[in-house]
């Protein structure tokens, strides 16, 4: 009797050790690629990240040097345009899902948003190509911004809905019981309480689209020169990296590494910002 129990115990200990080891190895498997990416980018890109990279335009083919300032600025312009489309629609839609609407219609909208979140990003590029580029007969910054903005909408919508639903019902009731109108309650109490979560969702969506290349191939198209007219093709960092990486020139390869490093560091910074925001959020939502 006693020995049987002890056998069971040692088997249980063995199972515990086995599962612990498996989870540990999985954790390593998750972290390793991140380390490899950073290491590789630093080794290959760090030496090419210099002042010229951030301040100069691309040099003509065959001339050594130059930078990607047009692509960096172009990416920021595209992100700005995408935000103008994606943030209001995403945030308002998410608030609608959490606060208004019938349960049946909402579960359908939620399902559609989830499907949209799973649509490959190149599909968005093709859709906008069909809708905008063909109609106006030109690749353009507008088309690129629209493609990225459309990707943002379902991302922001779902995160906004989730953080708005996290706001305890007691606050809504307290505000409504003061005779405050429903929309004011939602804007001044509910959304204010959820604001850090909403901002976090927006930043994560920006980080996600910041590195998107595929939707820009048929829309923004890329540009080797300064262009501040959004009705014309515009440069973007991921596009420039793509173009340089598949080129046959060593100098362009170096610059592509540098561009990739800058992009990853930028996205990393956004994610760190998100961590800081979410860490402060916990005490405020009880």
């Amino acid at each position: 009797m006693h020995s049987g129990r002890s056998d069971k115990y040692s088997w249980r200990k063995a199972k515990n050790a086995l599962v612990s080891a498996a989870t540990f190895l999985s954790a390593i498997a998750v972290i390793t690629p991140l380390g490899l990416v950073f290491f590789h980018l630093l080794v290959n890109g760090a030496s090419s990240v210099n002042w010229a990279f951030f301040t100069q335009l691309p040099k003509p083919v065959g001339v050594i040097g130059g930078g990607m300032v047009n692509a960096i600025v172009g990416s920021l312009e595209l992100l700005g345009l995408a935000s103008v489309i994606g943030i209001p629609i995403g945030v308002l839609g998410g608030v609608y899902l959490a606060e208004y609407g019938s349960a049946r219609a909402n579960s359908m909208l939620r399902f559609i948003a989830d499907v949209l979140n799973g649509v490959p990003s190149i599909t968005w590029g093709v859709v906008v190509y069909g809708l905008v580029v063909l109609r106006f007969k030109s690749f353009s910054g507008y088309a690129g911004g629209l493609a990225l903005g459309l990707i943002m909408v379902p991302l922001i919508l779902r995160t906004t809905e989730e953080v708005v639903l996290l706001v305890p019902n007691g606050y809504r009731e307290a505000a409504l019981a003061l005779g405050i109108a429903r929309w004011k309650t939602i804007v001044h109490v509910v959304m204010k309480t959820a604001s850090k979560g909403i901002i976090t969702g927006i930043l994560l969506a920006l980080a996600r689209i910041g590195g998107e290349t595929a939707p820009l191939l048929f829309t923004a198209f890329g540009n080797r020169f300064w262009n501040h007219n959004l009705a014309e093709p515009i440069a973007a960092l991921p596009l420039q990296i793509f173009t340089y990486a598949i080129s046959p020139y060593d100098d362009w390869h170096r610059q592509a590494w540098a561009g990739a490093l800058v992009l990853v560091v930028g996205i990393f910074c956004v994610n760190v910002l998100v961590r800081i925001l979410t860490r402060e959020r916990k005490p405020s939502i009880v």
Partner: protein
Amino acid sequence: MLERRGDTIEAVPETEVLPLTFQIRQLSVWYGQKRAIDSVNMDIPSNAVTSIIGPSGCGKSTFLRCLNRMHELVPRTCMDGKVLLLGQDLYSADVDPAIVRRRIGMVFQKSNPFPTMSIGENVIIGLRLNGVRDHKFLNERLEKSLRMAALWDEVKDDLHKPGTSLSGGQQQRLCIARALAVEPEVVLMDEPCSALDPIATAKIEELIHELKTQYTIVIVTHNMQQAGRVSDHTAFFYLGKLIEFGPTTKIFTNPSERQTEDYITGRFG
């Protein structure tokens, strides 16, 4: 600013001489198929504390929420009957629920100061979001409300601190101050002390006693001693029905109904 009085109605019971704040006639409420309140008739006197007691699930909170139309926030509820506030039908088609709730304040079981706002902002938020901009007026009302809620001396130097930094009992008094700041005519309290320790409870009860000179108070409580201590009138609810309603001393010493007596003596519930 607000419509104070509408048409007065006929039915005031002959025995009742007190002025009435609420007249409730044949009130029934359903959640989907389930009947939560069954044909309740009740007259709630002014400037007095009326407590509502009964076992869990008897419809006390639902009844309270019918008085300021808060039950409408729950999907698939429907109600029948009339609730008159000083003679005006709260459920007639031209009455805005927001206006009803401005006239009838509410304090909840769990204290819920807004987490993004300071103590001061919490108190005046009802006025501010209803369009009051005058700073002098807001500051006066802030102090007055906190004094009435017996909280001013404890927080007057910390008005900028978050409302959630206060203790549980202070938070509940802050919620009372917030409800008083919009100058309601009635204050509804839904088990306001159930999450508080005995000292904080005693403070709230003392406060209720003081407030009844200016307000009509309706309080739902699980604690029969509390009902005995704070209220002038007591209503006993059971399974959605109003079993007995009368002066608190009578309900607790000489109830007319067998069910009331059983509940009060602890034979069930």
